[in-house]
């Protein structure tokens, strides 16, 4: 279709020369439908492979894998102190060994693997993993680190095979593999007991599955095709079960799948039933399987952690009652006037009704009332009668049991103030009324009165009493007619990021955030009962925990008053503006500095821009009628250029918008996609160079990447002695190596 004069034009620009061979290709394969053509190409490639069987495909991955294990494992046990977030993840691993329930914002898979490594290392879970502590001799931390580093090392062959699946030239394949291998930040972060190596590993496997599945697109419904679909699903499930960041690579695969289905939908040769099977296969493979994997992880999490531990208060009261060693089950059943109780919000992720001496900065200025997720004596409330009833007399043996529709007062045990609400807008949810603690035993008014409305009781239809754990009730303010509610809205720093508690005007009986139950209960006058026989369903616990994780994640926002030297901002990552000191900078400890290979970072970031420019140029030239690219070229750009670019954007842009604290390692998954874009550009443009020139270009790039990696290797292998020895690595002032 290219008219001669346009072709001349192209030659005149000089660009045409390089494209000559390419440009001729369509002429050589005349009028073959696209599908067949690709298959021909495929078979040609395979045949070629068999004809001159190159040992590269065996030797290269072996060599790379060996080097990967070397760079990740060499001197791995050198530093015997708890480094950086090992303090968290090592501790979480210990909880699995001790089977104590804990709470964390990340899904459990990565931490269960840490636990597994501890189990294999013969560790009993007794070490506290305090940041900066020395490992005691009984903790085989070297083995635990090796276990983690294995995931990091395996990323290298995965990158190699991914490039092979994309049918890149040897030069480009080696380049990408080398860049992953010689990436200091990957090498460093893989050496510790952290989740990042696992996250990277599963991101890499997902990309491999993606590339492989794309290659199989013309062999739908073969066993191989099904196998890789299921593998993709498993991989996605795993990556999402390590950190929620995995959702971004999931989105990438989802986008590809949507586009693929859309193309199939437009292919009139595919009958509708076949289309339907395509759709069902993807729903099962890419939605149901990952969900099942994700839920299975939580199932294992709940099964392993069957003892009471530090994270109890995040969960519903019933869940806690089923943990071994909890004190909840050992409480009186019926709640009486004078009982000391903690009151739990029954919404997903609900906390315990809490108050503390700090006051509201606006509004009434009275004492704050919040919901809090940790056990604390400020969660305790006394149930008192309203002032117009007979006063509670602790010495008298009489017992009064408040029930449905009865009016009570709640007195905060630590400050003696009454739970109170008034017609002042709440601090965040302005449409609701503020809830505060006010007055004391004697000072107060009728705005301290709350009417109990029983919603349900899981063991009885008798609503005349409130029972520990089993009775769900609402508290209605007698004067304003509003209902006590805590809806997972975090207060600002002045409220310590606890959950805002308000009085909501609308009467919505189904709103579980207005439902409360008594969790702990103390009353010496009453006999103790065992109520642990009521189980909370798994699905409910699962949702509850996930909502709680989301709420806590949202609360991890930077504190503007706190100088956080470790945190960094999104714009600093691609330009390698800062690094991160992973441990204290004492002369006599082994120091690790988390910093990428500058060539890789700057090169990949530049390649992103270059990709955009090249794309724009091609697009404008296409609109001007210049046929620079063949159909295969366009497919190559589309699937092996654009998808990695989108993957990079998916893994990067959310961090720009995210309010939470961010660190350099949040860029690592995105970096892999940037490396792929870099490799794509090399692959695409070096193909056009004469073979020798191409190899020279590749050779120089390899040398620079490897050279800089070796130059910076002390920051990954650990720097011994005074940091000033390594001042030569401090290329900019922001890299606080020395």
């Amino acid at each position, binding site marked *: 279709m290219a008219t001669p004069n346009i072709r001349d034009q192209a030659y005149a620009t000089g660009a045409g020369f390089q494209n000559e061979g390419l440009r001729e290709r369509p002429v050589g394969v005349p009028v073959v439908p696209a599908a067949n053509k690709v298959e021909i190409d495929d078979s040609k490639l395979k045949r070629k492979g068999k004809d001159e069987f190159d040992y590269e495909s065996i030797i290269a991955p072996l060599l790379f894998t060996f080097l990967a294990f070397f760079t990740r494992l060499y001197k791995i046990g050198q530093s015997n102190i708890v480094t950086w977030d090992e303090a968290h993840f090592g501790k979480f691993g210990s909880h699995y060994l001790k089977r104590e329930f804990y709470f964390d914002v990340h899904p459990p898979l990565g931490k269960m693997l840490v636990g597994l490594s501890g189990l294999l290392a013969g560790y009993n879970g007794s070490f506290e993993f305090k940041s900066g502590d020395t490992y005691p001799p009984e903790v085989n931390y070297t083995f635990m680190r090796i276990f983690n580093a294995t995931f990091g090392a395996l990323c290298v062959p995965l990158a190699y095979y991914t490039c092979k699946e994309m049918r890149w030239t040897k030069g480009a394949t080696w380049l990408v593999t080398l860049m992953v291998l010689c990436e200091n930040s990957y090498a460093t972060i893989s050496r510790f007991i952290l989740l990042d190596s696992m996250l990277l590993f599963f991101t890499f496997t997902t990309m491999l599955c993606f590339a492989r599945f794309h290659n199989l697109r013309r062999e739908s419904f073969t066993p191989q095709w099904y196998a890789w679909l299921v593998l993709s699903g498993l991989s996605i499930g795993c990556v999402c079960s390590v950190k929620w960041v995995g959702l971004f690579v999931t989105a990438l695969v989802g986008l590809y799948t949507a586009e693929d289905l859309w193309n199939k*939908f437009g292919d*009139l040769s595919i009958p509708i039933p076949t289309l339907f099977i395509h759709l069902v296969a993807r729903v099962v493979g890419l939605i149901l399987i990952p969900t099942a994997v994700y839920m299975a992880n939580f199932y294992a999490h709940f099964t392993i952690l069957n003892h009471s531990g530090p994270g109890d208060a995040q969960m519903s009261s019933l869940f806690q009652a089923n943990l071994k060693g909890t004190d909840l089950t050992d409480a009186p059943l019926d709640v009486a006037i004078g009982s000391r109780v903690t009151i739990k919000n029954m919404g997903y992720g609900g906390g315990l009704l809490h108050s503390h*001496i700090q006051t509201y900065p606006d509004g009434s200025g009275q004492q704050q009332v919040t919901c809090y997720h940790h056990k604390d004596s400020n969660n305790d409330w006394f149930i008192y009668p309203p002032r117009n009833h007979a006063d509670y007399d602790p010495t008298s043996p009489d017992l009064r049991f408040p029930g449905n529709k009865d009016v009570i007062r709640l007195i905060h045990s630590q400050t003696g103030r009454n739970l109170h609400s008034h017609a002042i807008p709440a601090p*965040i949810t302005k449409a609701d009324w503020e809830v505060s603690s006010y007055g004391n035993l004697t000072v107060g008014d009728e705005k301290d009165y709350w009417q109990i409305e029983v919603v349900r009781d899981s063991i009885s239809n008798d609503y005349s009493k409130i029972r520990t754990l089993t009775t769900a009730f609402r508290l209605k303010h007698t004067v304003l007619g509003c209902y006590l509610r805590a809806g997972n809205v975090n207060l600002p720093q002045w409220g310590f990021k606890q959950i805002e508690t308000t009085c909501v005007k609308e009467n919505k009986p189904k709103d579980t955030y207005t439902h409360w139950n008594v969790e702990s209960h103390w009353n010496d006058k009453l006999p103790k009962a065992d109520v642990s026989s009521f189980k909370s369903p798994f699905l409910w616990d699962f949702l509850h925990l996930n909502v709680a994780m989301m709420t806590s994640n949202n609360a991890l926002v930077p504190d503007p*008053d706190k100088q956080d030297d470790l945190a960094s901002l999104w714009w600093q990552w691609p330009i390698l503006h800062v690094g991160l000191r992973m441990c204290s900078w004492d002369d006599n400890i082994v120091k690790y500095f988390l910093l990428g290979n500058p060539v890789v970072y700057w090169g990949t970031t530049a390649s992103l821009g270059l990709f955009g420019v090249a794309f724009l140029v091609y697009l404008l030239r296409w609109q001007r009628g210049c046929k620079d690219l063949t159909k295969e070229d366009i497919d190559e750009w589309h699937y092996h250029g654009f998808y990695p670019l989108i993957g990079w954007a998916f893994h990067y842009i959310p961090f720009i918008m995210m309010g939470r604290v961010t660190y350099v390692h949040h860029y690592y998954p995105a970096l892999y996609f940037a490396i792929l874009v870099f490799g794509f550009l090399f692959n695409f443009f070096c193909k056009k160079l004469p073979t020798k020139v191409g190899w020279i270009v590749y050779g120089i790039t390899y040398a620079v990447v490897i050279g800089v990696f070796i130059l910076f290797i002390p920051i990954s292998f650990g720097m011994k002695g005074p940091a000033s020895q390594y001042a030569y690595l401090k290329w900019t002032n922001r890299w606080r190596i020395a």
Partner: protein
Amino acid sequence: MVDTPPVRQRVGRKKTPVPGSDEEPLLDVVKAPVPKPKKTVSAKSSSTAVYSAALVACTILAFVTRFWKINHPNEVVFDEVHFGKFASYYLQRTYFFDVHPPFAKLLFAFVGWLIGYDGHFLFENIGDSYPANNVPYVAFRALPAILSTLTVSVVFMTMWESGYTLPACLTATMLVLFDNAHIGQTRLILLDSTLIFSMACSFLAYVRFYKHRDQPFSRKWWKWLVVTGIALSCVISTKYVGLFTFVTIGGAVAVDLWNLLDYKRGLTLQDFAKHFVARFIGLIAVPFFFYLFWFQVHFAVLSRSGPGDDFMSPEFQETLSDNVMAMTAKTVNYYDTITLRHKETKAYLHSHPDRYPLRYEDGRVSSQGQQVTGYPYNDTNNHWIIIPPVDFPEETKLNIPVRNHDRVRLVHVVTDTVLLSHDVASPYFPTNQEFTTVSRAESEGKRHNDTLFEIRIEQGKGKQEFKTMAGLFKLIHNPSKVAMWTHTKPLPDWGFKQQEINGNKNIAQSSNVWFAETIPSLTEDDPRNHVAPKKVKYVPFWKKYIELQKAMFHHNNALTSSHPYASQPIQWPFLLRGVSFWTKNDTREQIYFLGNPVGWWLASSLLAVYVGIIAADQLTLRRGVDTLDKRTRSRLYNSMGFFFLAWASHYLPFYLMGRQLFLHHYLPAHLASALVTGALVEFIFCLEPADEDTVATEKKDLPATVKQQSPSLVGAWIAFGVITVAVFAGFYFYAPLTYGTPGLTVEQVLRRKLGLYDLHFAK
């Protein structure tokens, strides 16, 4: 190819027949030149007459609805508090600060100036009476009402210019004409009327510009290009949501340019560059300079110091006349006696011989040191001598100015003790440090470090001198890094109900700011008393503009506090919640800002229908089934696509915004959704293209009236009739809440209470 829809006939009226295919204003397909239509003049003009008559009728109705009882209520309503106040500031020429650009506010000031109002009333509170204060509020309100009336006309003309049939034009117009939200928001002293009018004008101007695309670089082509640019500039000079209008027009321009670039169009690259540059000039350069122009006017008008001074740098403030700073700022020297005042609560730093009680009510203990409090009145106990950490040699100790970041000590004159803070909890705040004083001897001795404070001047540069009045500063306790702070809750009787002073760990808090008010020790003949008042300084426009622009963005982002009537973007198209503007208890009257539910729900559901049609078309096309003819599809994607883009770009970005949002932010998007609705009515109810004269050329000679009665339009007219009746009914039903009169009984209020409408007087 088709031609001669009603629009063309309008062209005929102007006796400049335009060749080509302007009945599809945003059609971007490549097409062969269309033969010029042959039309009888009578048919053209009679159709034009029908359109013109409809336009006039709509305008009159719009005028009536906008001006109906415009003098009611005669009190300050809702945000009139702000925008009325700003007009007064302009008239008084006192500097103020606001997050919105100046254009619309200058318009109000212009109205005030025209009628000779002096701006004495400051619109302090909602409910303040206008007649009692002698404010010409009707004139003020007439401006938005007029612009809103014209908005209705512009909507009609936009539809007309885009080539829609009369019922379609009228349907779109009715949705805006009888919309309670548009009326309610635009008959008060608010900016939205200007915003919406400018936005509608930029759509109209762009459609007209686009219709001249067959004569690029002609006089008219340039005219409408520049008009589009100026209209765009007015939008963004009113509020920054005008950026969304740029996105809308920019999107359409990008598509247009992309098609021009197509080599099949035969444009050379030079031609294309000319197109590109022309649009850049018309739609970016001209609007930008126009936008800057308003800032120049703003600075020129506001020449006197006023409430906005505090937002600006000292350098900027010195450009304003009557500025306290410029007049009285004096350098503070060491060994001066000074008084320190808290900026927010206006309390002086005070001390007296009484001591903190050993034990507070809640059982915590104090240091029992001398009380340091905040006291609002003049008193010798407010006097403090500012001295260096280590005394200067006696002979050279005078006339050394205190500078930013200097460490100083403050000596209380009456008791001769030195201010100190330490790690003891303050009376009210267990988290904050107590402030007290110690004797001079202790201050020289072991407590020396605890008596050191750093003067940290707000936005201070380097080692600048510390001055009275001008230099707002924070007093940071040197060893513990807490800031001296006070609040309004009075101390108990032991503290004589004076204010508590304590050390706030949150240094960044803006309420930590103090200033030195006077230097009582200054003698009459001190040279500092005899400095001639400074002249008003000159700062170049660019510097002032950039500083103001930065401050505006900064404060706009800081508008995150919540408001009882703020709403979420998701609630707007469904009209789930309104805003209470004004209430009057004795007459049970209220203004509750709310759209016309019938109109809004119709418009929103038709947006969904539009998306559905596009999706259905894409799906069927994908399977090789083509249900639409080329012209209809072009209309669906280009003209309606433009309106839909306008809606989306004026609505969706709000989801990304963190600041507080209100229902009135949806008004621009609602106008766009009305355009989509009108266009869809034609699409759905006209079974054939409106002008089938290409198919049957002989019909061309029929009079226009006959054509309009042709069967294809009957459906559309019926739809128009039904919609108008329903919309009017909805408008009439909610009119008492829009106009604020008459008052409603409980049942009447309850009948109008849908969704989350928090109406007053419902009990």
